[in-house]
């Protein structure tokens, strides 16, 4: 019986394809315009300005370095929302590539994720600069933050894989996700603290929204605080979503691509 492609070992040719597809993605953003890239970078800053202007008086008085607090939340939620939406849409658009070439589908998914994740890392760098500016930066916390960043990236990849498959089965998933993901800006503690909301809302926001533990733990570390519960929670969520994403992808990719 012919080997299923995903069961084949990852070869040098696969690596070459990943590099070239990713290079093409990067060339396209540079090619389109540097300004386009700057706009996407200015997006979180514009949002920071607006949220700061609106919420600083109500929520920001008791939060030290409130702009930094806001920015980390905005960057993380933005990254999750944009990456998942973009990967889901690109995956669907790449169906002709999947049914006409032997390129592994996970490579196509990863190459589409590269731009969003690259932008995320650049934005995080900006957060670190701001953290330094506020005197919150600590090398120990920085080292502790690296596993969380990695975990957040694999969490996004896992969630995107699941959403990309779902979008092949039902085309309105993309639209439903767009609606749902907008709510994330309110059900994630971006401009408020968890202690500011009622007990039941806190439980809901923390346990039903998988982005919250990542935001709480990474923001804590960038602001010089360490919270063991959210730290471990984030790491386990990353591993869980990655395993779920890979499992779903490998078992459903053939059916999804044929159905799309």
């Amino acid at each position, binding site marked *: 019986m012919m080997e299923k*492609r995903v069961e084949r070992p990852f070869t040098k*040719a696969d690596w070459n394809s990943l590099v070239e597809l990713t290079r093409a993605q990067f060339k*396209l953003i540079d090619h389109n315009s540097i300004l386009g890239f700057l706009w996407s970078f200015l997006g979180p800053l514009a949002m920071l300005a607006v949220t700061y202007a609106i919420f600083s008086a109500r929520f920001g008085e008791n939060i030290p370095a409130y702009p930094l607090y806001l920015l980390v939340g905005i960057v993380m939620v933005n990254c999750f929302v944009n990456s998942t939406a973009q990967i889901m849409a690109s995956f669907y658009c790449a169906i002709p590539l999947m049914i006409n070439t*032997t390129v592994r589908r996970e490579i196509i998914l990863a190459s589409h994720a590269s731009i969003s994740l690259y932008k995320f890392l650049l934005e995080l760098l900006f957060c670190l600069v701001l953290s330094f500016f506020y005197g919150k930066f600590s090398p120990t916390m920085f080292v502790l933050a690296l596993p969380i960043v990695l975990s957040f990236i694999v969490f996004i990849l896992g969630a995107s894989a699941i959403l990309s498959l779902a979008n092949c089965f039902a085309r309105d998933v993309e639209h*439903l996700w767009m609606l749902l993901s907008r709510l994330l800006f309110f059900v994630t503690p971006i401009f408020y603290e968890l202690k500011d909301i009622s007990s039941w809302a806190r439980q809901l926001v923390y346990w039903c929204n998988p982005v919250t533990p990542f935001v709480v733990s990474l923001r804590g570390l960038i602001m010089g605080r360490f919270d063991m519960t959210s730290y471990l929670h984030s790491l386990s969520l990353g591993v869980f979503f990655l395993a779920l994403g890979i499992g779903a992808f490998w078992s459903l990719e053939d059916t999804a691509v*044929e*159905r799309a």
Partner: protein
Amino acid sequence: MNDSCVMANDLSKHFLVLRQRETAFRMIKSFIRRESLMRKLSVLSHVSFEIKRGERVAVIGKNGAGKTTLMRLLAGIYKPSGGEIHAPVDPKVLLNFWTGFSLDLSVVDNVYLCGTIFGGERMVLSRHVHRILEMAELSSVSHSPVKRLSLGQIQRLSLSIFLNTPGDFLIFDECLAFVDKGFLQKSDGFINGHITDDKTVIMASHDGDFLKKHCTRAIWLDEGRIRMDGEAHRVISEYERAVFEQAAV
């Protein structure tokens, strides 16, 4: 020379096609009511054949006969619904000449991109870029975006990259539909010169003369089943006669 390159045994493929547009709500409703939103469409049924290493095989048949599906199965892109395929060699496939191109990138960038998709390496491709562009007659527009090229030029580029990247088992489908006679002659020469006897080739086309010139064997697919399998000239002539008779009716 006589060892097997591909063996298909009782191969079948069906797809589930939608009765109506699939939405999340309809999926939930059909799950609750235990009604299927899909119906089964059989594309290939009980197809068996063996292709030896070094054979050049034409796959012919009307549109919808199952040629492309068969090629995707042989390439490992689709999983069979029934039967099995033994394919020890990874094929290099060209099923759609525009696939793999990034239209906003330049012709040269696309040589690297597509070349890698066909299994080439950047270092090796950089040595062949000039030859690929010369063959495609696109040296003068090498830095233009591919979206500025005509359909025929894109097809020439695609074929030039495909034929200039390494591979012992080639599968290509309907690749010469839009090219001019000059390029067709060039492709003829290239196929004769570069596709040596140790390479296995499976090609589908509606150009009977091209297939007769380059293939030693032909498999005629009709409504997902093998209608005839044998010497290329004989099978292709029979197929053309049947098509002609059907058109006359």
